[in-house]
């Protein structure tokens, strides 16, 4: 077999592998989409696979979600939106300022140790925090509030943001900032008018990653909230246990509503997100 033929065989095998894995990833998503259009009858006897052929799709689950029970669904949805956006914004401002400071100032030669100190938090299992958080927020009277989740999620996102953004700011040329300061700008102006715009790709990546992290978080939300401040993942599991796992179509519709925004954002910003996700390991 010649080299060209060998290469062609390898390419074909590669596409087969990629196609197979894509299918594995696609099938559950396909399933949840068609299930959200199914009726009870389509799920009572045997599995049905193809809309219009196996079963007649209907919109009742979507009507249930967006018309009949909209208010009931809207509360956790708004909780998730508010908690995710506010906590990520707070974490972005505080974390990237610290990242900038660690890139531009000298803290007695201990800059690397400070960054490592931030990162050590990632070693700790979440289980270590939930008990203390439960007691802390109970004493503060903040149980079942969005504020409690915002505080926890921003503090959880800060170390990662500091770590990534410090590296990002270090890669930016310092001369522009220097000349701006000679022209009379102060550090705050330099950070927000010069450094941050230049670091926009990094900021977008860490912001979206914290957004997704907060949007999907479950364990802390389960520990700290139970009625007023529940987020979508918690709302979903509550529905599942209330309905005894049988209203598949409604659950599918809720799943899709909760998944589509973050998956769309993540995939649209693929380049930055992959960079942010693989950043740590590529550096270490």
């Amino acid at each position: 077999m010649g080299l060209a033929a060998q290469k062609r065989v390898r390419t074909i095998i590669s596409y087969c592998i990629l196609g197979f894995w894509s299918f594995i990833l696609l099938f559950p998503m396909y399933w949840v989409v068609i299930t959200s259009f199914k009726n009870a009858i389509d799920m009572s006897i045997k599995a049905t696979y193809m809309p219009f052929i196996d079963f007649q799709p209907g919109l009742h689950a979507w009507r249930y979600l967006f018309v009949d029970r909209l208010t009931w669904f809207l509360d956790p949805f708004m909780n998730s939106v508010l908690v995710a956006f506010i906590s990520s914004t707070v974490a972005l401002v505080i974390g990237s300022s610290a990242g900038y400071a660690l890139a531009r100032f000298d803290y007695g030669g201990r800059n690397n140790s400070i960054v490592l100190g931030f990162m050590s938090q990632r070693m700790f299992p979440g289980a270590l925090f939930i008990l203390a958080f439960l007691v802390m927020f109970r004493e503060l009277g903040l149980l079942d509030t969005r504020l409690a989740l915002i505080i926890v999620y921003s503090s959880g996102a800060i170390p990662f943001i500091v770590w990534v953004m410090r590296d990002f700011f270090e890669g930016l040329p310092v001369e522009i900032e220097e000349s701006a300061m000679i022209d009379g700008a102060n550090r705050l102006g330099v950070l927000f008018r010069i450094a941050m715009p230049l670091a926009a790709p990094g900021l977008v990546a860490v912001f979206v990653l914290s957004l997704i992290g907060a949007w999907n978080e479950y364990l802390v939300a389960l520990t700290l909230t139970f009625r007023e401040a529940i987020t979508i993942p918690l709302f979903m599991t509550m529905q599942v246990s209330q309905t005894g796992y049988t209203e598949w179509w409604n659950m599918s519709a809720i799943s899709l509503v909760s998944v589509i925004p973050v998956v769309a954002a993540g995939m649209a910003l693929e380049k930055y997100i992959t960079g942010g996700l693989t950043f740590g390991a590529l550096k270490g």
Partner: protein
Amino acid sequence: MATEPQIYPSKRFRFEIKDNLWKWIFLVPAVAIILILLAVPVLWTLYAAFTDLHLYRIGDFDTKFVGLANFEKLLSNRSFWRTARNTVVFMLGVVPAQLIIGLTVALALNNITRGQKLFRTWFLMPLMVSPVVVSFIVGRMLFQEDIGPINDILRSFGFEGVPWLTSPTWAMVALMAIDVWQWSSFMILMLLAALQGVPPDLHEAARVDGANQLQAFWRITVPLIMPITMTALLIRIIDAFKVVEIIMVLTGGGPGQATESVTLAIYRTGVKGGDLAFGSSQAYFLLIVLMIFGGAYLFLTRRAMGKD
């Protein structure tokens, strides 16, 4: 820069004082938040692990130090060892599977040019989905025993339906499948990044020198992607040790205690049961295991790679 102070000496001076202030204004909020919200819980949990603290008795003055009693209780507790065993089994099931899938798919992805970006974007999808939703969709719906598609397909090929959620063994397999579905993508993207760092001409040169495809892979590609692979593996191992959400949604730790992980046990005893002291000792046990394991792993891999 050097000429500046001579022209405006006083202004320059003021400017530096102000800049010195910004140095602290930028850093202190982040440090303060991390100290309060990360260090305090870690220390508080350590304290709790040595007391008889209970959620429903907080504020009483009779919280006492019990020394190592919680840890003694832990080590002699069969239920705890059961959850520890489950966690290790889970980790040993998912991490190798993710490594194999990750390497296979990453090699395939590195081998093609057309459509690479498309596949890469699509493979990112599972990482964006919450574990709760993944466990619901992949676990509860696909592995549903009566009308789920997996059993349905098995039956149409003449097999028996598998009792995915009612058999202890199969429930663990289903949980592993969920984790593999979600996190193989992480290995794929990491290993792809590693593979793209291998200079192609190195590979070519080895082929020209008479090495076959396999030899070139083992001698050139593998050593070069080893550092990233090892880091990716460590991240996945630590995450697998912390598994909890997918179990809560799919099995709740059942049947019996067959799929309960350490973190789920901590939640059950500490948050649900209110036994903060015993929960804290379990959390610290997990932390100590992770630190010893992580430390040993880093030490051994660094040494092994240093010797190569």
